[in-house]
């Protein structure tokens, strides 16, 4: 095991990927709890598609991928938040519309310019090799900012997630904190997308929180448990992907599925009467 790890970490690209992946896994699992509970999981999925479109355009124009995607996805996050807050428009349908449109535009741009290169495949399915040194620095800085903001606003995020009306009524600026959640999610998705792939990044957000909600009963314990689940699944996934040359994103999701099943089983055993999943 130790030999394997030291062998893995002798590759700088792997070290970079593991550092970024580790931080992004933490961010994703923290935000995931709030997104799942607010019924905003679709936003995460929609954003990853928008992210794919913007990465495709950036690569067609030879621009820095992160520098283009982050503002585009952040803007999309605010729009999606608006849509899902405004119940008059059919929220989920509009999100689906927007995300598939972004995906389609991305595919068109790609087929007209570079064609289906490995780069493009990597955006779809993720690759651990995708990150340049500059990307790594930016990713580390941004994910640390996301972490700090989450911790600083933890109590407020809990309150607007638990009962938005009460928060508004008692003078908490719920709208601002919703936007903060959307902003942090957008950044996390763009950062994680290179490794996980546009198709799989939202699972990094959703799985750990759903998994820990099987067993944990308080908000804080769910948050802490998700972080551990997320980080553990990430490391196991990376190792498996290295050993069997499997795609990183898919391996991580695979481990997450196993963790989810294990937690579900444990919760079923714990309260034997209810076999409800």
């Amino acid at each position, binding site marked *: 095991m130790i030999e394997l790890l030291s062998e893995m970490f002798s590759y700088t690209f792997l070290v970079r990927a593991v550092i970024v992946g580790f931080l992004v896994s933490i961010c994703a699992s923290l935000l995931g709890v709030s997104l799942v*509970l607010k019924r905003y999981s679709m936003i995460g999925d929609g954003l990853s598609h928008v992210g794919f479109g913007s990465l495709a355009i950036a690569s067609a124009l030879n621009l820095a991928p992160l520098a283009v995607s982050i503002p585009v996805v952040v803007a999309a996050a605010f729009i999606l938040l608006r849509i899902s807050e405004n119940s008059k428009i059919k929220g989920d349908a509009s999100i689906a519309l927007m995300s598939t449109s972004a995906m389609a535009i991305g595919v068109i741009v790609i087929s007209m310019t570079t064609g289906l290169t490995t780069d493009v495949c990597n955006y779809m399915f993720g690759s651990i090799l995708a990150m340049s040194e500059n990307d790594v620095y930016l990713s580390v800085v941004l994910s640390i900012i996301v972490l700090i903001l989450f*911790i*600083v*606003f*933890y*109590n*407020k995020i*809990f*309150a607007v997630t*638990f*009962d938005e*009306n*009460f*928060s*508004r*009524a*008692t*003078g*908490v600026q719920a709208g601002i904190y919703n936007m903060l959640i959307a902003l942090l999610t957008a950044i996390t998705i763009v950062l994680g997308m290179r490794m996980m792939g546009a198709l799989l990044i939202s699972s990094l957000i959703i799985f750990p929180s759903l998994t820990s*909600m099987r067993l*944990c*009963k*308080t*908000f*804080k*314990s*769910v948050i802490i448990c998700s972080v551990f689940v997320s980080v553990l699944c990430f490391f196991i996934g990376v190792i498996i992907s290295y050993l069997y040359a499997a795609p990183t994103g898919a391996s991580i999701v695979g481990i997450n599925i196993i963790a989810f099943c294990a937690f579900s089983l444990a919760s079923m055993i714990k309260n034997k009467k209810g076999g409800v999943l």
Partner: protein
Amino acid sequence: MAMISCQDISFAYESNIVLSAVNFDIEEGSYISILGENGSGKSTLIKGLLGLQKPIKGKINISETLKNSDIGYMPQTNAVQKDFPASVYEVVLSGRLNNLGIRPFYRKQDRENALSNMEFLNIIDIKDCCFRELSGGQQQRALLARALCAAHKLLILDEPSSGLDPLVSDDLYQLIKNINLKQKIAIVMVSHDIDRAVEYSDYILHLQNKQLFFGTAADYLKSDIGKIFMGGRK
């Protein structure tokens, strides 16, 4: 001057008017009970007072001395999702959030206040229990404790006793009256219990998609509406 003054306000859902022409004031430290049948617009009015819903007509004047962060609120239906993971303590403590301002974390006094309100409402034993696994009455008390944590000048309660058994409900009315008298916190409470409303509150607001009555409890007893609704019981 009144803390909140409602001038001829009306509310509608998608151009469906559910409440019209409401005129009343909430004075500092006063106790107002809102009566009316189901669907008469009580909860809608409460949401209007809290700024959660805009009136389609009229004006709600809020005095400069009353900030949203002075208001405690207990919603009628607990809109909290069935599967939300949160402990009772986490829920109650979140009522102190409006005290924090820009400070990110709770202080010792916030925690103490939350604990004392939980003690007050007899839910201190279940403070680490999962909110969603409590009985209706226990959830109700947790939400009331949260409202108490948030209330500094005004406490707005939408049918707080609906999930409670009669004995607990007696305690609740007593407790709310105490808060009103001792802490000088104004109370606006939606209630179905006309007898208790008349007994405990200063003013009665009776709604039926419009304002049927607003005035002191004593005047309500003498009024025609009051007589009809009290059913000659007193």
